[in-house]
């Protein structure tokens, strides 16, 4: 009983702090007064609701804390998750392949699937840099932008098609990865993070301001959609279209389903390459670099090549994804490549549990799929996104899947638990 009183007191103090914090923002409102000056309006009811909510939430949290101390440790939960992971991955794969063909998914759902899959691919690409090589990259969106603009410009000025541009976009993005990676080879940790962020911003600013080439803030229109062996997905159903060739009625869902399978294939390619590389010397070098840069260097690993290949390969997949983004939207502008995109992709990688391929998929579904379903709450969407990021990190700092399975081991491979995994400072 005494404990409850203590909890209540704590909750009330938190309520007082909340009152002060929310006071000027929820309790007061800036409005337009007479002759262009500002005026203040009050809305006490909103402030009261917010403060009461905080007090109640705090009280429940404390109650839950007292209750939780008697429960089994979280390690068991992690073990269960790790075991079920074996079945979750193939199940998800089968679901992903079958999804557009299932009757109860509307075209909008498939479109959402395309969006999620794009972020899965970006997440897997960034996972190579952040999750495997341990290089904190806050400017990954730069390579996404390079891929998207490469395709948009090549098709705009030279009339190249999606399939011709796709490899070019990857190569160009990889070159940019090396080009931007070279100057930052000596930097570590947060210095690296801020310089990659700066590079991301530089690329976006140059795209915005180089109006004669890129159209600046207006972006580039009429980017061609991908074709299926030369068949287009035009709605008129004339000769040379998909619907004409296969004798079916033209329907927008055909194009979206086609896009879905393209991005699925690209994402699976990313995953396959990553999984293969992890088992090869290069992938091992990346993981060694992540764990301890100094030990890595003393064992004779070429740090320069290891870092540059991580940047280049990660950037290449970002470029592929960018190329796909351009063809899917048909229109791109610098607004699509802001820092918030980099932050979202990084959040997906970290929430998934850096280094875990399955974790990225789960995190992408949670971070992209759930907000997209909240369209009705348009104004509050990003607010909820922010709260969710903080909340998930506080609850599961290591992400959804925090265990690691070594790629090589003597005898039976043992899963390494979260508490044993420690990153170097690289």
């Amino acid at each position, binding site marked *: 009983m005494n404990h409850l009183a203590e909890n209540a007191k704590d909750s009330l103090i938190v309520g007082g702090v909340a009152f002060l*914090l929310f006071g000027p923002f929820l309790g007061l409102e800036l409005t337009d007064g007479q002759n262009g000056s500002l005026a203040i309006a009050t809305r006490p009811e909103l402030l009261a609701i917010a403060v009461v909510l905080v007090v109640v939430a705090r009280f429940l949290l404390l109650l839950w804390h007292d209750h939780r101390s008697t429960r089994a440790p979280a390690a068991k939960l992690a073990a269960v998750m790790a075991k079920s992971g074996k079945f979750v991955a193939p199940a998800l794969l089968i679901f992903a392949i079958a999804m557009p063909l299932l009757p109860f998914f509307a075209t909008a759902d498939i479109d959402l699937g395309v969006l999620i899959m794009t972020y899965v691919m970006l997440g897997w690409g960034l996972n190579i840099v952040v999750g495997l090589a341990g290089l904190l990259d806050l400017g990954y969106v730069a390579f996404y932008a390079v891929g998207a603009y490469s395709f948009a410009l090549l098709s705009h000025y030279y009339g190249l098609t999606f399939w011709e541009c796709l490899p070019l976009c990857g190569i160009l993005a990889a070159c940019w990865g090396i080009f931007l990676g070279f100057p930052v080879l000596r930097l570590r940790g947060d210095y690296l993070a801020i310089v990659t962020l700066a590079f991301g911003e530089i690329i976006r600013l140059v795209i915005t301001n180089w109006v004669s080439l890129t159209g600046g803030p207006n972006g580039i229109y009429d980017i061609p959609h991908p074709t299926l062996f030369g068949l287009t997905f035009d709605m008129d159903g004339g000769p040379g279209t998909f619907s004409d060739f296969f004798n079916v009625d033209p329907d927008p869902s055909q194009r979206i389903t086609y896009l879905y399978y393209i991005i699925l294939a690209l994402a699976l390619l990313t995953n396959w390459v990553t999984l293969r590389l992890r088992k090869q010397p290069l992938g091992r070098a990346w993981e060694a670099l992540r764990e301890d840069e100094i030990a890595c260097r003393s064992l004779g690993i070429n740090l320069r090549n290891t870092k540059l290949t991580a940047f280049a390969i990660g950037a290449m997949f970002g470029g592929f994804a960018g190329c796909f983004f351009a063809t899917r939207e048909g229109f791109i502008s610098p607004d699509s490549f802001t820092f918030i995109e980099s932050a979202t992709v990084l959040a997906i990688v970290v929430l998934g549990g850096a280094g875990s391929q399955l974790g990225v998929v789960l995190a992408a579904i949670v971070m992209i799929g759930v907000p997209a379903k909240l369209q009705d709450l348009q104004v509050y969407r990003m607010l909820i996104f*922010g709260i969710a990021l903080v909340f998930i990190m506080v609850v599961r700092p290591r992400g959804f899947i925090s265990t690691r399975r070594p790629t090589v081991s003597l005898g039976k491979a043992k899963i390494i638990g979260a508490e044993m995994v420690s990153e170097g400072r690289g």
Partner: protein
Amino acid sequence: MAYALQQLVNGITLGMIYGLIAVGYTMVYGIIGMINFAHGDVFMIGAFVGLIALTALTGVASLPVGILVALLLSAALCGLYGFSIERVAYRPLRGSFRLAPLISAIGMSILLENYVQTSQGALERAIPAVIPGGITLMDENGFVVQWSWMQMAIVIVTLVTLAIFTYIVTKTPLGRAMRAVEQDAKMAALLGIDTNRTISYTFVIGSALAAVAGVMFLLYYGVIDFYIGFNAGIKAFTAAVLGGIGSLPGAVLGGLLIGLIEAFWSGYATVAYKDVAVYSILAIVLMFMPTGLLGRHDIEKV
């Protein structure tokens, strides 16, 4: 010559604001080794509190009193914001996976931006020039170099704030505790320093400095919206890194440099590419001095 002098005056004023924000970044980085991404948004919150206070006080108090009250109120409230942010989003993650606090901070930044956007609207809010006029430094063939009272006030307020801050860090027991925790948190704790409380105070002080910068920004430009925190935050962080992250004089120096680069680039090259110039110089400096201008070289023990 006159033109250069004008850019110098503008650059120093801008640099002072960046420097104030940068101090908060560098303090937090020094003490717990994380990038406090939400710091720029605390600056934005400070600007908004200042705006609300100034609007509420219009006609009630005289102008200097109004500004002073706005400054103090904003600093106090932002201190509380800094304290709460640390408690909610960073403290549970201390000693955890390196990237977790970073993502939490990015989430906090998105949260604060949208909190202000939904509660106060997405529109830009403007106030009329609070202190008009200034002194003429130079008159060259009709080109008048103005050092406005506003710019002078910003420089003075910044210097006073930095002086108080320097006093706290170098002379008080709290400052000693902060420096001790920065050097070695475990050892400081063994010697009886309450590290948690010291870290909380660090956030409070850093956020209060950002709030002062926010009010200055509001008075200088007269226009704010919920998004100002991002750009100012990135620039200030760039300033902190340029000066050598973890170094307090470095943060102010970095801020001034960034302000000057921005002013001179806008004056002599293209305004559109001023941010590109700032980021490029950051990259170039770090290429040759990987720990910034005044940063310490980490000795890595194996």
